[in-house]
């Protein structure tokens, strides 16, 4: 499908980008110290921070990926919404407050608070880098895919443009500008999606009616298989529906979807641009309708494990994502960390409820591009006019900017604060440390651009699932045991982080999905029974930690008053 850039879209896009850069420059004049760069002086208001959580978290995968998946396959995309939000429950009830008390700038700070060990700092810093980079790739791929239709730019140019803008945001003002960019993006995304949902409900959708050939009476059709003999099918619009009625009617109907004809020929007279398909509403609202989750409907237990494992990874992964964890250092105290998480859960949960409407709306709007599920949400907006399309595309672009800047900041903190200063013991003055972090941000940003170009063909949602698996396997066992098991030792933490990271990474690289999508090999040759490692590697991390801790001598814990000293 070809897209044309409109002056309106380009204008709104440029306005957003320049606005964000100006804001970063303006804020950057004040963020000269390390506390300012890494933690925004710990003085961000909890409400701002809460919305910034949403900005951090609602990445291109959440917005474009989930909407696209629902639009293509129905309910299965919504499984990601459910799992992504469930992870926040772990973050709020278990992780948030201790993380805030134990750390100063980075995740490694918190993990190491009780021990003061270079080994812990190094292993956690490396896991932070690995997770950040795995999470960066899909964001960059998403950005490239977006810029193409929006601005008519080449994919590579799009990825480079995103990379450069993000590097500028992070380098200019670190956590201060990153937080404000995420706040703006988070609120714009949620508000505009709410408006789009209202428009979807007001429009209703087309369902199939069975018309009696004799009386001419039309009754809504509930099943494609059950069209009565002799009846004709008519497609009618339902008119506006309430939020509950919309889903009820959808489930009770045979839904008329229009997809673009992949064999469409512009020259041929009889070639039609779209194909009308009838689909059972009930079937589209059941798990297992997509290739990713087909295993749920299988009789074999091993096929179901993939689904269970992914649901576990999403649940356990959120609270282990480095760019989410560092956001706890931007607020004043544990109570503010708690309050901002609740604000985050509220806005993120509200957004995820909207995704079901956006996805089903995109499915039935007749504007899907069958070659690109990531474009479902912007194209849905286009069905309401050029202005919504331009706005939603620009918001989608800032979505990428917000998440990528958070990730690059987390990675630059791991390099400058954890590895350079705390592991290698390079003594840096405050402003030199900020300088080192800025250089690290540039390097990670350039790396992200290169990887984004290399992995252009990979599915965005699929890559994010991997990042969650690695985060959950490497970080969660150590984090949880550190908080709840007093016998945890330094060696236990190092072993759990290292083994969890390597095991999940190895599992992913040997999985059937990687065989097919990365190496182009026959997926049947893979030696791994299912693709999502969390179900095995998260418990493995716990076992390794317990065994190693019991084998190593107990050490006196540092009292809390010394936690924040190096």
């Amino acid at each position, binding site marked *: 499908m070809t897209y044309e850039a409109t002056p309106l879209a380009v204008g709104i896009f440029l306005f957003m980008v320049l606005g964000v850069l100006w804001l970063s420059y303006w804020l950057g004049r004040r963020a*000269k110290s390390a506390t300012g760069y890494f933690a925004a002086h710990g003085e961000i208001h909890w409400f701002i921070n809460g919305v910034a959580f949403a900005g951090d978290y609602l990445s291109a995968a959440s917005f474009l990926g989930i909407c696209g998946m629902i639009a293509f396959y129905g309910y299965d995309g919504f499984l990601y919404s459910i799992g992504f939000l469930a992870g926040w429950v772990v973050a*709020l009830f278990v992780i948030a407050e201790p993380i805030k008390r134990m750390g100063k700038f980075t995740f490694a700070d918190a993990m190491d608070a009780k021990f003061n060990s270079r080994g812990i700092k190094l292993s956690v810093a490396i896991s932070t880098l690995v997770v950040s980079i795995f999470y960066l790739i899909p964001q960059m791929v998403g950005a490239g895919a977006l810029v193409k239709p929006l601005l008519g730019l080449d994919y590579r140019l799009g990825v480079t443009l995103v990379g450069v803008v993000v590097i500028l945001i992070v380098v200019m003002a670190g956590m201060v500008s990153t937080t404000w960019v995420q706040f703006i993006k988070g609120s714009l995304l949620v508000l505009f999606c709410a408006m789009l949902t209202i428009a979807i409900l007001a429009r209703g959708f087309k369902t199939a009616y069975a018309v009696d050939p004799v009386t001419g009476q039309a009754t809504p059709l509930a099943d494609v298989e059950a069209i009565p003999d002799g009846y004709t099918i008519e497609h009618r619009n339902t008119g506006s529906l309430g939020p509950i009625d919309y889903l*009820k009617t959808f489930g009770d109907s045979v839904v008329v979807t229009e997809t673009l004809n992949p064999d469409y020929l512009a020259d041929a007279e009889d070639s039609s641009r779209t194909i009308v398909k009838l689909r059972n509403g009930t079937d589209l609202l059941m798990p297992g309708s997509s290739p990713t989750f087909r295993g749920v409907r299988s009789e074999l237990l091993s096929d179901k494990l993939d689904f269970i494992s992914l649901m576990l990874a999403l649940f356990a992964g959120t609270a282990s994502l480095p760019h989410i964890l560092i956001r706890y250092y931007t607020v004043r*105290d544990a109570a503010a960390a708690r309050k901002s998480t609740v604000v985050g859960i509220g806005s993120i949960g509200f957004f995820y409820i909207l995704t079901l409407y956006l996805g089903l709306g995109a499915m039935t709007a007749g504007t899907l591009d069958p070659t690109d599920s990531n474009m479902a949400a912007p194209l849905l907006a286009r069905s309401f006019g050029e202005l919504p399309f331009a706005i939603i595309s620009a918001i989608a672009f800032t979505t990428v900017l917000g998440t990528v800047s958070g990730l690059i900041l987390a990675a630059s903190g791991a390099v400058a604060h954890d590895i350079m200063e705390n592991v290698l013991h390079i003594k840096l003055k405050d402003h030199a440390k900020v300088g080192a972090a800025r250089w690290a941000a540039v390097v990670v940003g350039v790396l992200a651009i290169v990887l984004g170009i290399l992995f252009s063909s990979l599915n965005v949602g699929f890559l994010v699932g991997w990042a969650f698996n690695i985060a959950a396997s490497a970080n969660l066992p150590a984090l949880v045991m550190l908080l709840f098991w007093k016998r945890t030792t330094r060696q236990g933490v190092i072993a759990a982080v290292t083994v969890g990271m390597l095991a999940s990474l190895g599992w992913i690289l040997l999985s059937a999905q990687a065989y097919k999508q990365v190496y182009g090999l026959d997926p049947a040759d893979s030696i791994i029974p299912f693709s999502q490692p969390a179900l095995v590697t998260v418990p493995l991390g716990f076992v390794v930690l317990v065994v190693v801790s019991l084998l190593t001598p107990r050490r006196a814990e540092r009292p809390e008053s010394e936690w924040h000293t190096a």
Partner: protein
Amino acid sequence: MEGADNIELLPTAKISVVIHQRLSTTLTHRFMSEEASMSQSSPSAGSLARSRNARIGLLLFALYLVIYGTYVGLAAFRPDLMETRVMGLHLSVAYGFGLIAAAMLLAVIYLFLCRPEPVATEDRA
């Protein structure tokens, strides 16, 4: 330097800090000043409130884990039940919305049940 940095603190933030302090009783207030000089390891109002909050958090977490686990189990092993209608909605949709609503509800409950813990060792003023 630090003084200039305070400009970033929003006016609303300052107001909420004031309200927060007014709401906490004078008793906790006294503990706050005492605790600043006290070691964290001895039991104080701060660590009591903290462990109480942590217990509530774990309880709510366990509750949510049961709801979430039931959902994953249903989807994986009893997909036929997902077609049941709850107030006209399919169970799959109703349960999904329910999970999101439950997370929000439990989060707000947690916020109300938590006691303010005095900030002891941190000094950012």
